[in-house]
């Protein structure tokens, strides 16, 4: 295998990430460091108001994480231990809320508050917490549930025989064994909610501000880039610190020696059936009701039901530079382009990184960085760094799909790379001895075997692009490039039933497309364990 030709495939991905990620985000960090002596920045950072923002950012993330764990743990247990009809369907369907665009989720909760007379919840931290649990339910059920399923039930049985009660067994045996999975699920939920943007902006109201929304406010509303850059730097330090901390604790974990059991699934009986029903009912209430209410609201016209809101999507609205229908078309086009870019760049990177060398790991890490960077930081970076020749890209229409692709590339890379690495070298060698040239080997062996992973990555990149809001809210300087999430954001932010109805209708369409791609991913991912 020629090592050099393979490595040269890294040039394009490396350049891509350097120009569209490293340079912009690096500029922010540079600017953030440089503004340390800026009086205005010092004034903002030392204000009481900012202390409140930091406190709220942490507080809401911690409470969201704890609530999600509490609500989702019973479901994780049910999925791990009980053989019920529809178990796999349940596992698949709960992933839909996780991939829904944030603005759609905000719209769904707005719909719930309006429909059930809960207007009091609007613009409160409670609304934020509810939406965060809605989003991250699947994270806990998938990660903890899958881990739990693979744990043998024997130690628990031994504890019971040795005289421990049900609760005692759970607390002293099960919980400690689950710690690795609980830890990584909690870390992911915390990270997501700490950098949450659209949900806070739309559901939290003016009093709920996090570091993430403050970056946006200082950059977009107040045009104080120095302050925004300093905040972005601060947030990045916090996130990196958290990631380092979690990887440290994960490393020091010992392997559960009780072994992997073939199957711990059993059919529920008696009171266990009631427990399963309760789990399903709570999932329907938490995940199903907002989705169904959103659909119901989008169809409700005056006293009855109709498709009026959907028909109105083609009309120009005063608030928006283009019609909602045009925004939707934009979004779909950008999503296809973002997926295509992500597939091209991600595949090249995967080919270059196939060897388990330092080079391969480095490239892998470089291309995964955008996933760990908050969307707002990415958007801000493009806004302030890519505005001068030779990199005056901010006003080009294609910067939107390119920014979206940055987040999609890690999904393609993370899918294709293990698939390529999983192909036994013997297969390629046999193909070579049977007369296949290196190019032919790629076509006959690598391509078909990694193809499924590539499709999954593409579908992810597509779904991510379709719902992307944080970065996009900075970028388009040309009105005709407005995307569907931006349109929903603007429409939801205004009073008036007609506009809200259109926002709901647009949300429903976006939801159907993202849910379809998420379920397609599930189908393609035959043996998906873990979160995605």
């Amino acid at each position, binding site marked *: 295998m020629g090592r050099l030709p393979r490595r040269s495939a890294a040039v394009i991905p490396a350049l891509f990430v350097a120009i569209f990620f490293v340079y912009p985000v690096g500029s922010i960090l540079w600017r953030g460091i440089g503004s340390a002596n800026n009086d205005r920045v010092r004034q903002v950072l030392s204000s009481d108001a900012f202390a409140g923002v930091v406190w709220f950012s942490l507080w809401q993330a911690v409470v969201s994480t704890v609530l999600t764990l509490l609500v989702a743990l019973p479901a994780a247990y049910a999925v791990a231990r009980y053989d019920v009809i529809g178990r796999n369907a349940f596992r698949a369907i709960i992933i839909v809320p996780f991939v829904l665009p944030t603005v759609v989720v905000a719209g769904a909760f707005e719909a719930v508050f309006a429909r059930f007379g809960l207007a009091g919840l609007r613009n409160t931290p409670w609304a934020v917490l509810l939406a965060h649990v809605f989003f991250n339910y699947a994270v806990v059920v998938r990660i903890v549930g899958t881990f739990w399923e693979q744990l043998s039930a024997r130690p628990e049985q031994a504890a019971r025989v040795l005289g421990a009660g049900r609760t005692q067994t759970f607390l002293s045996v099960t919980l400690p064994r689950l710690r690795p999975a609980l830890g990584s699920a909690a870390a992911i939920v915390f990270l997501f909610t700490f950098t949450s943007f659209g949900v806070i902006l739309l559901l939290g109201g003016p009093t709920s501000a996090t570091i993430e929304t403050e970056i946006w406010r200082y950059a977009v509303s107040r045009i104080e880039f120095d302050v925004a850059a300093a905040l972005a730097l601060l947030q990045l330090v916090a996130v990196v610190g958290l990631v380092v901390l979690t990887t440290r604790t994960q490393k020091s974990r010992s392997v559960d020696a009780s072994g992997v059991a073939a199957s711990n699934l059993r059919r529920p009986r008696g009171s266990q059936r009631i427990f399963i029903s309760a789990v399903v009912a709570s999932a329907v209430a938490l995940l199903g009701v907002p989705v169904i209410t959103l659909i119901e609201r989008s169809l409700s016209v005056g006293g009855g039901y109709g498709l009026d809101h959907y028909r109105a999507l083609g009309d120009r609205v005063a608030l928006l530079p283009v019609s909602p229908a045009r925004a939707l078309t934009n979004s779909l086009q950008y999503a296809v382009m973002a997926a295509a870019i992500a597939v091209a760049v991600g595949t090249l990177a995967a080919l270059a990184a196939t060897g388990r060398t330092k080079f391969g790991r480095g490239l892998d890490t470089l291309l995964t960085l955008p996933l760990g960077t908050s969307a707002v930081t990415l958007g801000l970076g493009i806004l302030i760094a890519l505005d001068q020749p030779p990199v005056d890209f901010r006003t080009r229409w294609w910067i939107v799909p390119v920014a979206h692709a940055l987040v999609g590339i890690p999904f393609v890379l993370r899918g294709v790379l293990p698939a390529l690495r999983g192909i036994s070298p013997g*297969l390629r060698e046999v193909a070579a001895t049977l007369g296949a040239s290196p190019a032919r080997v790629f076509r006959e062996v690598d391509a078909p075997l990694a193809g499924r992973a590539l499709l999954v990555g593409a579908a992810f990149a597509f779904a991510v692009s379709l719902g992307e809001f944080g970065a996009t809210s900075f970028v388009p300087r040309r009105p005709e490039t407005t995307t569907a999430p931006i349109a929903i954001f603007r429409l939801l932010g205004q009073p008036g039933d007609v506009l809200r109805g259109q926002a709901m209708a647009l949300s429903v369409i976006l939801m159907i497309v993202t849910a379809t791609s998420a379920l397609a991913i599930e189908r393609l991912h035959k043996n998906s364990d873990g979160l995605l």
Partner: protein
Amino acid sequence: MSTTAGLRADGVTVRFGTKPSGGRTAADRAAVDRVSFSVDEGEIVAILGPSGCGKSTLLRVIAGLEQASSGTVSWNGEDLQNRPPESRGFGLMFQDHALFPHRNVADNVAFGLKMQGLAAADRERRVHTMLGLVDLAGYDDRRIDTLSGGEAQRVALARALAPSPQLLMLDEPLGSLDRALRDRLAIEIRTVLKSLGQAAVHVTHDQDEAFTVADRVLIMREGKVVADGPPEELWNNPVSKFAAQFLGHPNVVDGEQFGGPVGPAILRTNGLRQLAATEPGALTGTVIEQFFRGDHYKVRFRLDTGIELEALSLAHNELGSQVFFRLAPDAVSPLLRE
């Protein structure tokens, strides 16, 4: 051996690079050390040795999957140095069978034919012939993950043979199978290869397998060839103590004590015949171990001199009882001093 027909390896040496960081590694020793041997047309040569002796690396050099540090590999007199694996016309079969999981049985077997650009109808005919040859007629549409270990190896053999390779290389092809299946398939492989007049190099760590399949056996140790000859010759006269022990000779002794020349020698078990009672020149010993082996017993006994020998016995012998054996004069073969 004097002709240039067939495969010739001359002084093939493979060194894996030392780490530039200067850490001490085992890389100072060559993985393959000046190995020379040849395979005539239609000949099956087994390369036998413990794991890590360099036999698989040697095979990969012949296949073109690995570069030799020095030495040459040639086919019919042509140096293969600059020929990539895909244009050498050699077939290769792995221990883990390496069947393409995304193709069915027929498509796996047809792969090499497709690379040769054979027409679809001819491919199909050839695939049928090959599947018939390995006793898998009708398996065409089966998925790879539905095959048993033995079936998978048969498909791998059919796939490697389908394009009529000049030389077939088998890398521990039966290593992952259980004993009984391994014995049966080893016979099948030899039958198939001989029926086609196929030249082959068969790498294995199992001497039974090597003896069953091959016309000639090379024994490798730490990168070097330490013995080379037909199975019977090697068995009767393994030359080195390492080869004797590796082939499973239990009685490595000092030859002089048993009527041979001074120095190390083997005492072949089939040259020891048990006697009902002692007679002049018989070996007398005390039974210290006995194992039931189905149609015979394996018995270990200690002579008065303290030397322990192993022999076959058709009868049961009590532990601690006296046994008498007659030693055939030609059962003692000298070994080189090491």
